[in-house]
């Protein structure tokens, strides 16, 4: 401290200061709960925000996209089949390829005498791809969310019970998982779809047959760790019932992990549904999921790339978005970053 910075030190300044002792324990700033704090972290994570924005936009498009033009997802018109994408306004921006010209350089709109614009082109039935892609997104998302939800319910219950009761219960439940894991899940899923009526419901159930195992494992691990934590012991010494311990202490503390896991389950389910479509076990046409649209277009990948391109972009964006959000949440919930 430089001398000239020292002003005159008057006697007065050496009088005892009245320090408000209650201020001692004051905590500055707003109270931040776990969720609020996590949200704050998440907000600072650019990737996660991009992910959230993508999910929101795609979800909105999944809801409203099919209504944005006059075509329905099943309306066929073979006269306008397999048109490439053409978007008003963007049609003149050459490199975007949204001008209705196919890869051989022919303007198909002109060739087929079509005046309308199909933003994502049309498929082999002349159905509007835009409408179908968003319709498909809707179904894919629905399947994924539903499968994730079932995984969540079964996984949390199973893992929670296994860890909470421990001992023999845990042992038996873990053996069961071992066996389930030993059966390649592809066969289980395929058998499931074959035995039940094909359709959205059986796909969801099939995805859920083995899907919950990951969740169960994570919940079990977490609960095992938590149940000997001192705050749980404290609650027990206060005479808390099992229900209370589970509901107030265990679940809220594994919730973060559960959400993260779910975030990764969703893209996996979307992906697996696409895979099932590929081996011909998809949903009933003319309804379509993103997977089945890609699968249908796949055979003409070289000739009509637009049939694969747009749904692929959407599915990839969805996967990326959920992964980004999952990663972001993991960082946001990471206890190591908190004090």
């Amino acid at each position, binding site marked *: 401290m430089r001398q000239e910075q020292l002003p005159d030190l008057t006697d007065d300044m050496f009088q005892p200061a009245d320090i408000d002792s209650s201020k001692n324990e004051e905590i500055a700033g707003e109270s931040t709960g776990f969720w609020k704090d996590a949200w704050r972290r998440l907000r600072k994570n650019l*990737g996660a925000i991009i992910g959230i924005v993508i999910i929101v936009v795609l979800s909105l498009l999944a809801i409203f996209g099919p209504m944005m033009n006059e075509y329905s997802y099943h309306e066929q018109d073979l006269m306008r089949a397999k048109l490439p994408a053409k978007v008003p306004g963007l049609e003149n921006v050459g490199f975007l390829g949204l001008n209705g010209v196919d890869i051989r350089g022919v303007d198909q709109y002109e060739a087929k005498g079509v005046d309308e614009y199909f933003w994502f082109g049309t498929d082999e039935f002349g159905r509007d791809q835009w409408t179908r892609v968003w319709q498909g997104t809707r179904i894919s998302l629905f399947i994924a969310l539903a499968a994730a939800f079932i995984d969540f319910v079964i996984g949390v219950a199973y893992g929670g019970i296994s860890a909470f009761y421990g001992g023999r219960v845990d042992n038996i439940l873990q*053996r069961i998982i*071992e*066996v389930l*894991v*030993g*059966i*390649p899940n*592809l*066969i*289980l899923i*395929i*058998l499931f779809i*074959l*035995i039940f009526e094909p359709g959205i419901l059986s796909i969801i159930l099939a995805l859920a047959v083995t899907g919950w195992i990951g969740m169960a494992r994570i919940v079990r691990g977490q609960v095992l760790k938590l149940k000997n934590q001192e705050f749980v012991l404290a609650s027990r010494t206060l005479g808390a019932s099992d229900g209370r311990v589970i509901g107030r202490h265990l679940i809220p503390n594994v919730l973060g992990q559960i959400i993260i896991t779910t975030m990764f389950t969703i*893209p996996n389910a979307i*992906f697996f549904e*696409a*895979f099932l479509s*590929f*081996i*011909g076990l998809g949903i009933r046409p003319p309804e379509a999921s993103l997977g089945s649209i*890609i699968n249908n277009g*796949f055979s003409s*990948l*070289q000739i009509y790339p637009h049939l*694969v391109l747009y749904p*692929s972009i959407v*599915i*990839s*964006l969805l*996967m*990326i978005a959920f*992964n*980004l959000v999952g*990663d972001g949440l993991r960082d946001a919930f990471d206890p*190591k970053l908190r004090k």
Partner: protein
Amino acid sequence: MGRYIGGRVVSMLVTFLIIASLTFFLMKLLPGTPFNNQEKMSESQIQQMNEKYGLNDPVPVQYVTYMTNLFKGDLGVSFQQDGRSVTTIIGERIGPSAYLGFQSLLIGTIFGLLLGIIAALKHNTFLDYGSMIIAVLGISIPSFVIAGMMQYWVGVKWGMLPVAYWEGFEYTIMPTIAIAAAVTATIARFMRTEMLEVLGQDYITTAKAKGLTSTAVVIKHTIRNASIPIITIMGPMVVALMTGTLVIEQIFVIPGLGEKFVSSIMTNDFPIIMGTTLFFSILFIVVILVVDVLYGIVDPRIRLAGGK
């Protein structure tokens, strides 16, 4: 160690038996008969075929017969491929699948580790984001799309690699890339997380305090410790690669097991379904055991615990 493995083998056998039984009964729920060209068969012919393959017996009897034969090492003969034994069929199919799976795993792991390491070391930089974008794309784009694009551009348009078939090393390149993309992505993400975790450990600070160069710290102390947990995801991945390559096998005309597996389900070729399922289950169980043992070898902390 020996006793530990012994104990594990016993529990593996039990698991295996349960899986075998479960699959058997599940399979019996499959609709339809296993006969080809059923459309041209009359009722009585179907009956005769059922008789011939013992499909008219009550399911429990079939089960006992199957399990007895199984213990004799007899997996039966394929319904679809007249008279060829299941073991022969699996035997001739496993080679390409195993080779492809192994090669993809190797390449995917190497690249995944590299990407993950780079991302972690350059945490929150452009390189980190770049690697993670690659990683996420790797998981996001369906492998058959990657495969189809490659076949067309690399194979046909540029003529750099053979379009399909399984006739030598250059034939394995494209399928390997298509499969390895997802492996790379998964490993890269995992590795990044683990690396970041390890980089924050005290022993890394200790190593730095010794005056080791950053490279030495990363190579000697970080990578090894970060890779250990990766071993655990390798187990399921190995099996997934063996079963899950069917799409790639189809596109690149590779006579592998994955393709056979799915087609046997589609054609109700019961002995093949059972055979392949059991094969995969054994593979899976063994791989898990190997992974656990390996884990113990790589991580000295576990070795002793396991040895008790």
